[in-house]
């Protein structure tokens, strides 16, 4: 079996563990940290899937996802500070 696909399955398992923290998290920053972790793991999973299927479009999607999730994280952090956006 393709080693990239096996690694992808393990990354998906760790995404499932991080979703538990997003559901449990007692405060809002806990959930934000969980979502940030899930974003990074999804980027790694997209790169792995692109390598496993030798399809380059998934890696382009991963780059755009990385930049957009960064903007989202900064937006939520600014909102939590209570400042004007």
């Amino acid at each position, binding site marked *: 079996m393709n080693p990239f696909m096996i690694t992808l399955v393990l990354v998906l398992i760790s995404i499932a*563990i991080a979703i538990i923290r997003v559901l449990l998290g007692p405060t809002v920053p806990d959930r934000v940290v969980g979502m940030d972790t899930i974003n990074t793991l999804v980027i790694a999973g997209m*790169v792995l899937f*692109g390598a496993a299927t030798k399809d380059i479009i998934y890696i382009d999607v991963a780059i755009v996802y990385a930049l957009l999730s960064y903007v989202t994280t900064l937006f939520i952090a600014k909102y939590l500070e209570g400042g004007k956006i």
Partner: protein
Amino acid sequence: MIWEIIYICLGIGVAFNVLASIGLLRFPDVYTRLHAGTKCTTFGSIFICMAVVIYGLWRWHDGEKQMIALAIHSFFALIAILLTNPTGAHAIARAAHRSGIKPAKAIVDDLEGKND
């Protein structure tokens, strides 16, 4: 030989990613969860992207001409992770401290009253 290097990079990367999610589940407050959830995933994802870059360069060297695009685009994904992830972690930590969350079991808070 090349496969062993790829296996080692993938093993380091996936071990750090799984440990990051376990630490995210186990640590007591938001600041320690930030340590687990952002630093470990940055390190692990860098190693996973490096494995894909090595694989793409190796396939390109063996004659598959379109695989150089895989290597270059994975390298740009690595750069994007490396630039954006620590900055986002810093923003979350600052927002958590300014919204009034105290560290669990902390005795001294050096940032007390320095919110400007």
